[in-house]
């Protein structure tokens, strides 16, 4: 018994060894300072539910941030970004897999200088029971379906009604329209 206690004591005190999840990853580089390719199995969770016990149906139906609890070590990874270039998050991509076990591939960011730890850019998803990978690039399609009134040319963020309303009220610099014009005159004279 003393030997078991000693062994478990050593295990508890041992430093956590960083694992390499790059094996088999086909993630494309974004040339980010702290990126590492990372492919791993995980369960999709509603982060607020996971941490606090506040758990609505279907992970909040896309309104909440979703996380990945990695199967091998129970670490909560936070996908901040999907695979599209322009200002789009990851919750919409993970929502179809709420509470399911999946495999994901993407870029893991860890940068002590800015406090990034277990931050993730998700590029593709595969339900464990499926051989087919799904690209994590559905956000703009869902946005277009939800905003038929914003149909038109140009990227979504130039046409998003809520963004346009904020800019119309507070300007591009957020200080009000009068100051906005003064700043633009100084910057672009």
């Amino acid at each position, binding site marked *: 018994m003393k030997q078991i206690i000693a062994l478990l004591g050593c295990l508890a005190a041992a430093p956590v060894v960083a694992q390499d999840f790059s094996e088999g990853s086909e993630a494309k580089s974004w040339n980010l300072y702290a990126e590492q390719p990372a492919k791993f199995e995980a369960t999709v969770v509603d982060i607020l539910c996971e941490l606090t016990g506040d758990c609505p149906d279907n992970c909040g139906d896309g309104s909440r941030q979703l996380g990945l609890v990695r199967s091998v070590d129970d670490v*909560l990874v936070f996908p901040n970004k999907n695979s599209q270039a322009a200002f789009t998050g990851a919750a919409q991509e993970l929502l179809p897999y709420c509470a399911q076990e999946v495999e994901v591939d993407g870029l893991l960011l860890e940068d002590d200088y800015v406090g990034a730890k277990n931050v993730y850019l998700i590029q593709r998803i595969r339900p464990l029971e499926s051989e087919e990978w799904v690209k994590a690039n559905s956000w703009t399609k869902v946005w277009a379906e939800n905003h038929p009134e914003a149909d038109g040319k140009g990227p979504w963020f130039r046409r998003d009604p809520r963004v346009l309303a904020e800019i119309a009220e507070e300007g591009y610099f957020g200080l009000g329209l009068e100051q906005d014009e003064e700043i633009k005159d100084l910057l672009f004279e």
Partner: protein
Amino acid sequence: MKRHLAVLVAALGLATGPVQAATGERISVKGEIIDTWCYFSGVMGGPDAVIGTAHHTCALWCSAGGIPVGLLAEDGTVYMVLKIEDSADSAGGDTQLRLASHTIEADGLLYERDGLKYLVVEEVVSDLDIQALSHDAYGTVPPFAIPKAER
């Protein structure tokens, strides 16, 4: 013997399985509502370039696009914001969009897991609007934030 071993494993926190919801630590914190992807990734430049007025339009885009917002405290700590008062819409919600780039004083509950700090804001004690006039040093970040036709 097996029973003793199971008790010991559990006592040492080595057991696997679902993590139980924890009780948050009550804190008060002041900081700017930022978009965490630009801040963490460096894709738009260093951390000083992706706060305040210079980055306001980009912060609006990111918030509307569902990128998680954080609260960048005065000591440099980033808190991932999961809820603000009655709004748990942390992926593109109206409350978070409205506060983009604003400095706020918040009371709430702090949760920590696997290297990140998470904040449930129970009360926005004060909304101090935008405090960081970063356009003085950085112009607009990204440079195309303002369409050419409006310059």
